[in-house]
């Protein structure tokens, strides 16, 4: 397009408006999730090729069931990470809520399941309130605070449990059945996780509050200047993350039927890995709950595949690490591809 045909006064850049890097954020975001999806598909294909039973109904159910807890955690973590914060205490919160729920159910076996879920959710939210209050009110880095509460909540859990273990026999039958029940062949826990995912993802994508979380993570100073209630939003994100970790704790108790004070130890790194693999930027401002959930599904599937493929147990962890690196590398590669695709660049005169 020639510039000569534009009228006076001369308009800057007479060519069509630039759509810069990531023009169409949606497209870029989708591409990231696509990358994880591709990796997932490849993994399933390879595993299924070597063992067709990997695609059996029971097997798929198992993977979904396994992923449910990590998905719930990763979705909660996404809320926090997009605000340029992090919640490392989720493993301890999960442990605390799992034990608390177990304790509740063993002492009051008549407790209905929804109430147990609410109890765990509430316990987790309480932990989230502690995190959020410290971080938002004192304006201190979340990594330090949640590393601290990782120790504190776990310590509280240990003191509470004092070596006690709650076994399947101590919990009501109905609760244990809930852990393995299916609806139309889909595990109920997985459905629950999908519901959580849908709600959080929609909030993040399409509600002002959700968009403000991204704004805060993208540039906290600017967020403050635009009148966004930064403290309140960050606080809210931590409360929800805590609540979801609490929910995950209940799910854990239901699924495994055995709870002691060590439940969920070290899961926080897996959660962060799931979010990062799913394309949630660790420095805030971008990424989606869907991506994080896909990341969680991918990590779980890796675990299941390695078990099915009978990979040498000594190699398994190394392979998991390698696959995490590969996944984030692939994500970066795809992002670069999308950004560098011709046609998005400035149109050069005469070009």
């Amino acid at each position, binding site marked *: 397009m020639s510039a000569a045909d534009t009228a006076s006064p001369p308009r800057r850049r007479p060519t069509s408006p*630039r759509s810069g890097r990531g023009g169409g954020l949606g497209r870029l975001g989708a591409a990231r999730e696509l990358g994880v999806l591709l990796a997932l598909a490849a993994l399933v294909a390879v595993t299924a090729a070597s063992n067709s039973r990997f695609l059996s109904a029971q097997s798929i159910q198992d993977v979904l069931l396994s992923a449910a807890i990590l998905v719930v955690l990763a979705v909660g973590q996404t809320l926090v990470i997009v605000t340029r914060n992090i919640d490392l205490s989720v493993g301890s919160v999960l442990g605390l809520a799992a034990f608390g729920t177990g304790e509740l159910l063993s002492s009051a076996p008549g407790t209905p399941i929804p109430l147990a879920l609410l109890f765990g959710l509430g316990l987790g939210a309480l932990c989230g309130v502690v995190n959020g209050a410290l971080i938002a009110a004192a304006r201190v880095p979340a990594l330090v605070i949640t590393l601290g509460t990782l120790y504190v909540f776990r310590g509280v859990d240990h003191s509470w449990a004092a070596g006690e273990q709650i076994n399947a026999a101590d919990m009501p039958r109905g609760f244990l059945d809930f852990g393995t029940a299916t609806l139309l062949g889909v595990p109920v826990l997985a459905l629950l996780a999908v519901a959580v995912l849908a709600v959080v993802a929609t909030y993040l994508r399409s509600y002002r509050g959700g968009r403000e979380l991204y*704004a805060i*993570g993208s540039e906290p100073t*600017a967020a403050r200047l635009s009148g966004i209630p930064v403290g309140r939003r960050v606080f809210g994100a931590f409360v929800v993350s805590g609540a979801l970790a609490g929910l995950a704790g209940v799910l854990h108790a239901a699924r495994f039927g055995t709870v002691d004070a060590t439940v969920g130890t070290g899961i926080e790194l897996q959660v962060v890995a799931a979010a990062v693999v799913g394309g949630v930027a660790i420095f805030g401002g971008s990424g989606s709950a869907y991506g994080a959930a896909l990341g969680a599904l991918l990590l779980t599937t890796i675990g299941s595949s390695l078990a099915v493929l009978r990979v040498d147990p000594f190699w398994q962890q190394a392979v998991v690490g390698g696959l995490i690196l590969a996944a984030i590398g692939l994500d970066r590669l795809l992002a670069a591809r999308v950004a560098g695709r011709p046609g998005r660049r400035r149109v050069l*005169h005469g070009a």
Partner: protein
Amino acid sequence: MPLLQLREVTKSFGPVAAVRGVSFSLQAGRVHALVGENGAGKSTIVKMLAGVHQPDTGGIELDGRPARLGGPAAARDAGIAVIYQEPTLFPDLSVAENIFMGRQPTARFGRVDRAALRAATARLFERLGVAVDPERQARGLSIADQQLVEIAKALSVDARVFVMDEPTAALSGVEVERLFAVVRGLCERGAAVLFISHRFDEVFSLCDHITVLRDGAWVSTDPTADVTPDTVVRRMVGRDVAALFPKEDTEPGETVLEVRGLGRAGVFEDVGFSVRAGEIVALAGLVGAGRSEVVRAVFGVDRYDAGEVRVAGRRLPPGSPARAMAAGIALVPEDRRQQGLVMELSIERNATLTRLRRLTRFGLLTGGGERRSAAEWADRLQVRYGRLADPVATLSGGNQQKVVLAKWLATGPRVLIVDEPTRGIDVGTKAEVHRTMSRLAGEGLAVLMVSSELPEVLGMADRVLVMREGRITAGLSRREATEESVMFAATGQAGAVA
């Protein structure tokens, strides 16, 4: 009754009294200019109006009633829209979301209506003549485009008071004219505007009243018609200011910087020029022409795909600012907050960051040398600071710019590349910067200057290169360079000088 009234407001930052008992008022339908030297307290007043800072004493009245602006949200709700001096965008979000953050149009169930959001932004950009895709990410926008988005953001608010802190600092004439048209429109609809600029032509052509600040204190408020630029400058600075663009003619020496066939896919193409010792070459063009990219590539912060850069005949390896510095190039970048300074570090650390090795003793930095050197340069460039150990973020915008200049001038370069060197700098210091550049050129320095301020280009340059859409479209000698000829070459309209 005035729409907004400042009564004896005072604001201190620790030992620094930024604003001392200032009063003035804004009238509906009028544009009010606020002028003063760098660090006079203009932005501090803006931030008080924006609710970012609370006055220590004194107060702000809206419609004659005291208003408590407890935070940015409160100010917005009170009908005050603000354009901050430093653009504050969310780099990860789309331009449209940046503009409407927190006020996005919603559809059913309170969901954000993306289509309406895009449409509203497009309408706004149309009005301002901004050619940016509303859907693109804000990251990577040039300073000028960022400024335009900021302006759009403020205009999108249905406000009665518009506060604009140097909105035009990064803009060239075309955008400025557009902005002025919009501002006049706002006034016709009964809004009051507070306008801050260091460019006197703008102040005098747009504003109805002018308030002068000095050292945080109020000096005068007059109708524009009653004062002249000279009187205003005298009140600002407290003395007369010498001629603004005193570039003396010098006999250029041999070629120091030579650029041949430089290209980078999609950004610029076939860029070639040379700069000789003692010469000031200006790189002119419209915002977005690619000038900043070219100088960044020359310095080595950006890579390039084709061509070469030579300094005094020796080829410079691409992509290494360290090697460029060793060869004697210095680059004062356009974005001082992101590229020029490390905001959290002290003034002293910033000023000496470019030449730490020269300040060591036995390979170690003991502090004394750095302090002395920093103090010396801060004085030379008249930086107003509390303590050298304060974070550079506490300086006013113009003073930050001076620290950037100090940091690079102190390296004693052979080639000085300056990108918008006087952006946000007050008249007094601007003269000082120009004098310094001129003197350095006289001493044999080769200067390459990117500037969007046409008077600066015409006044300072020995030669003017004009860029348009990533290519050099004209090379004009000082004699050939006029407002018309440069604009023609920059816009590509018929009649451009070859």
